[in-house]
Structure formats: C-alpha cells, structure tokens
C-alpha cells in the first residue's frame, strides 16, 4: 500500500505544479495580447528557418564562443534530460522503476549520455557563476543589474547545480543498489550506464540497502519536485527565454534592420494634405479617438515588442555592444527591455486586481521607467538588435517613444527641432537654400 500513497502524492504534486504553471502562462499570454496588432504571420518558411537556426541551432549564441559553447551544454542538457523527466513521471505515477529500461542498450546509452550532459551542465553553470561573481564581467554589473536581477541570475544557476547534483546522486545510489548484491533487492534491476555517478557511488560502498533506498528516493523526489518548482519559477524570473526564445525568433522582424515602419495613420493624413482635391472637412471612416502616435506606455507597443520583453534573459550582449552605453550614456538596451517587462507586469497585476480592467495608476513606461535622456542617446545603429541571441528588437521600442515625444508632446531636443525646421523650410537639415543644392558642381 505504501507505494500507492506515494503514487497519489506524486500525482497531486505533479498536477499542482503543472496547473500553477498553466495559470501563469495564461496570464503571460493575456499580457502579451495587450499589445497592438502587427502581422508577423507571413513568410512562414523564413520564420521556421530563423527559429531553427537561431533558437534551436543557437547560431547567434556562438558568436561569443566561450559563453556560446557553455550555453550549448546547458541547453542540450536541458532538452535531452527532459526524456529522463518523462521516465520519472511515468515511474512516479505507476510505481515502476526505470520503465524505459526495456530499451536495453539504447537505455544504457541514454542514461549514459544524460549523466555526461548533467556533468557538463554542472561545469558550465559553475563557470557561469564564476563569470558573474568572481570575474565580474562588466555586462553583469551594470546599474540595471542591481538587486533582484542580480540575485535572479544566481538563483537560476544554484537551481541548475542542485538539480543536476540530485540527478547524479540518485543514479549513484541506484548504481550502488544494482551492484550491491543485496538479498532484499527486488525492485532495482540492473539497468542503465553510469559513467559519472558510478564514481560518486564509491562514497556509498559501506551503506546498507535501506539507507541506499532512502538516498535514492529522497534524491528522486527532490529532483522532480525541484523541476516543478523551477518550472514555476520561470514566470517570476528572467529565465522564460528557455520557452519564449522559440516564438520570439519565429515572430521576429524579417525586414532589413534599417527599415523602420511607416506609420499608416500618418500616411493617410499626409496624403490628404498633399492632395489638392481632398475635402478637408470629410470625416474619416472610423469615428472615435484619433490614433495616438508612438508609445508612452506598454499598451502602445505591439505584441511582438511585449513578447520580446518577456523573452529577454538579461544577458546584456545588447548593452555591451551599444555605442551609447560604451561611452557612459544612460542608455542600456537591456534596461529598455527589463523596464518594458516590469511595467507590463505592473499593468497586468492591476488588471488581475481590478476584475479584468486596468485602473490608471498615473504611471507610464516613458518617464516613470525609461527617461528621455535614455531615449535621445540612441544612435539607431542596430548593434543591440544584431547582438541579441534571440532577435529581440530594443530599437523599435526606442523609436516608438521618440515618435511619441516628437509627435504627441513636441518634446524633441532644441537642436533636433532646429534640424527639423530646416528640413521643412529648406529641404536640408542645415540652413542652406535648396536653390544652392547644385553649387558644388561649379566649385571644382
């Protein structure tokens, strides 16, 4: 009967863990849908290709080889070891032990490779921890990385270390039981290859059957519960990229990076202004509020930009490539993404608390999170977009905020206003006469 209680308990834990995660995913999807519509469903062939190369194939990660290769260890480890999680779930629900062991040699190969990957994950995670905390790579110590973002990064690394250690210790105990010739052993058949944990099992050589089973069971439970906790930690951490990198690369912009969107509402107005036959008193088709130009808050951004913000894992490659940031300006593209997400969460929480309605809190993404100084420091050079391993586009958010500042608030820096006045009056950003445009020809 003992095991039946175990199985029921496991089913409850599993159900609770998965349900709570689904609840948060629903919140996440709802929040992303607060964004404006943008068509990213075209050209599915190119989109699948991007996803395959950039998310699945880690193409942009390996541009920085050290971090890139270590990341591949953790990434492949994460994906492959999930096969083991499937076995754990079946074992947990149906009181089997190593249910896939009927696969024989293939099973040995699988368990063997999980072990090697688990070991590589530990190595990679330790190096990552050293890079963050001992070597103190600059990009992990920027102002926006103080407090929670810094702790979050470390917590994730600790999680991974503990999970992998539990997995290997569990296998080590299992190995010790399998090869221990215990007369009371009827449950643990010889199965699996243990290239790493067989070394750990040396520590258990003097233990009796009962103690080994306890170690094996405790590690088994902590490992699977740990995975469920980690799954639910994702929503509260920067670590959502392990899931969102895939849709994020799929829905990423496919146009040349230099091509900024042409605002359609503006096109209509400009056409009206330039058309001598247009009736200035004609009402537009859709009555109601005139469209707001640009973005001052998250709901003015499109849903892909909001998806971007949840996908960002705060690696800081964007910021380390940003010319403004490199030369000490306040702008950090990573902070733009972190602020967007924080504000979106704030808006989402307000919706949760107020029966599905957002109650104006007098705050906006622009000014309360992102300053004008940051917005105006951008050179629109696209280094951040190019650097992002999962194709996040901070520049498009900066551009929308500039549009809001200029077209809704007339709040451009004075020099830019002068430049724009020149363009309006003389067709050049400097105060030269358009009639002098060809003078260079005579100056040979």
């Amino acid at each position: 009967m003992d095991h039946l209680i175990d199985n029921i308990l496991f089913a409850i834990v599993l159900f609770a863990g998965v349900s709570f995660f689904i609840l948060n995913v629903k919140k996440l999807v709802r929040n992303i849908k607060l964004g404006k519509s943008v068509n990213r469903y075209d050209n599915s062939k190119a989109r699948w290709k991007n996803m395959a190369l950039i998310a699945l194939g880690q193409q942009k990660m390996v541009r920085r080889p050290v971090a890139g290769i270590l990341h591949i260890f953790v990434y492949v480890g994460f994906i492959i070891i999930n096969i083991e999680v499937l076995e754990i779930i079946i074992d947990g629900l149906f009181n089997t032990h190593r249910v896939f062991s009927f696969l024989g040699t293939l099973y040995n190969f699988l368990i063997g490779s999980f072990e090697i990957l688990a070991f590589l994950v530990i190595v990679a995670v330790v190096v990552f921890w050293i890079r963050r905390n001992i070597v103190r790579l600059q990009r992990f110590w920027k102002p926006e990385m103080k407090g929670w973002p810094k702790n979050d990064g470390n917590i994730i690394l600790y999680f991974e270390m503990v999970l992998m250690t539990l997995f290997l210790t569990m296998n080590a105990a299992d190995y010790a039981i399998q090869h221990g010739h215990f007369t009371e052993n009827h449950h643990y058949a010889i199965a699996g290859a243990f290239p790493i944990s067989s070394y750990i099992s040396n520590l258990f050589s003097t233990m009796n059957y009962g103690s080994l089973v306890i170690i094996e069971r405790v590690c088994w439970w902590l490992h699977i519960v740990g995975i469920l906790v980690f799954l639910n930690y994702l929503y509260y951490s920067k670590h959502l990229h392990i899931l969102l990198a895939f849709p994020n690369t799929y829905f990423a912009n496919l146009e040349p990076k230099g091509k900024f969107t042409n605002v359609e509402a503006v096109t209509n107005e400009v056409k009206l202004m330039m058309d001598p036959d247009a009736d200035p008193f004609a009402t537009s088709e859709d009555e109601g509020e005139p469209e707001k130009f640009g973005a001052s808050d998250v709901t003015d951004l499109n849903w892909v930009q909001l998806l971007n913000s949840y996908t960002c894992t705060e690696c800081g490659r964007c910021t380390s490539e940003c010319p403004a940031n490199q030369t000490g300006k306040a702008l950090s593209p990573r902070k733009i993404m972190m602020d967007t997400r924080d504000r979106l969460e704030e808006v989402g929480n307000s919706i949760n608390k107020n029966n599905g309605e957002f109650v104006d809190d007098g705050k906006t993404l622009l000014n309360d999170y992102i300053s004008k100084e940051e917005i105006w420091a951008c050179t629109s050079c696209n280094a951040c977009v190019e650097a992002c391993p999962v194709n996040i586009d901070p520049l498009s958010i900066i551009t929308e905020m500039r549009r809001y500042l200029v077209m809704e608030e007339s709040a451009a820096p004075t020099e830019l206003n002068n430049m724009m006045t020149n363009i309006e009056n003389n067709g050049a950003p400097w105060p030269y006469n358009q009639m002098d445009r060809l003078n260079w020809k005579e100056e040979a």
Partner: protein
Amino acid sequence: MSNNTLYVPTMAELMASGKTPEVLFWVGCAGSFDDRAKKITKAFVKILNNANINFAVLGTEESCTGDPAKRAGNEFLFQMQAMTNIEVLNAYEVKKVVTTCPHCFNTLKNEYPSLGGNYEVVHHTQFLNDLLKEGKLTVEGGTYKGKKITFHDPCYLGRANNVYEAPRLLIQKLEAELIEMKNCKQKGLCCGAGGSQMFKESEKGTKDINVERTEQALETKPEIIAAGCPFCNTMLTDGVKAKEKEDTVKVYDIAELISNANNL
C-alpha cells in the same frame, strides 16, 4: 585624364532634350552642402564621367529624404519629404538610384516603396563594383599599393542592409593592405552620428562615440581610415583630430580613393 570640369546633367536638362539617364545620382544633403562631403560627391562624379556613365542628378529639385526626421521620431515630416520626393522621382520615371550616403540609401531603398516610390537603389560602393564587373571601370593599384587601410562599416550600410563586401572588394582592388578593426562588419561600432545624433549634442557620458571608434581604428595602425558615408567621414575626421593624428592618418571615402588612384 585629369580635368577639372565635371559633367553633371540634371534630370530636367535631360528630359528637355528627350533623354533618359541609366541612373539617378542622389547626392544627398551632406553631399550637396557639407564641404568635406562635397569632395566625395565630386570624386564620385569624376569616376562616373570617366566611365562615361549616363547619369543625372536632381539638382535643385532634390530635397532631404527625411531620414534624420524619421530617426528623430518625426514621422509627419519624414512622410511629407518622402512623398514630395517620390512625386519628383516618379515624374521623371526614375528606375535606378545610386547614392554616396548610406542614410539616403537605406531610406530610399527600404522606406520609400510602401509610400509609392519603387526604385532599384544601390550604394556607390555596390555601383562601382558593378562597373568593375562590366569592365567599364578599372582601378589602378599604384597610389595605394601596400598601404594599410582599415574600413569603418557605416551602420546603415552594414547592419541595416547587410552590405559588407562591396566596399572591401574595392579596397582590395587598390592593392592596399586591408586591416580589419577588432569590431568590424556585424560588430562594427557606430561612429556616433546615426539616429539624428549628427544634429545634436550627445547626452552626458564619459566619452564621445566618435573618439571611441577612432581609437579602435587607430589600433590597426592604419595610414588611411576608409569610410563609405559622409557622416561617418566627418565623425572619424574629428576623431583623428581629437587624437592629434591628422598628420599621419587620413580619412577618405572609397570613391575618393578610387578617384585618386586613377588620377582623376
């Protein structure tokens, strides 16, 4: 064949005599008004004249593409400029445009089509490569043979439009020694002028971007820093002055290098 008279027909003149050029040379505001950039314009025209290219400019009918307004967030002004220019370009039935400015190049190529302006738009480094391939242009190695040249990728040519090889192929034709900066191509650092920064003071920081980029260029110990953008050119020239290297390191546009090499 060095001669100082440039042949620069305008679209209006050609149209009046019933001719259509193969290509419109979009000079741009910098190329028309900025003293340093005008030299690039003239160098490019010399190459065009020498290769007997049937081209024209808009002259006084050309107006800012609207790029700096768009990057600053003024979509109204950008689209006003764009639609005005498109009316002119379409009236002349322009099919192909070449420009020495990557900002004009990007805007005309990417942002004009959805407003009704559909042209084949090429950067002058691409155009010159095509001339080489067609045998209309040859590049003399002599002047720059063995000289150390580093190339600064303009953001709006490189990352924005993935044009990295065209300028490099031309430098190699000069038989010069092309030395890459640590940050080049996709990882090239901006000169600091993009996104309308050319027209304003930079925000508070610890350093000017153009000085940072110039330092990266100087690390390669170049004799020449080659550029492909009038704004980059200005920023790097200022950077070289700030580092007091103007006597030993020159900043040239690729068009100037070819024009000089060919003694035009």
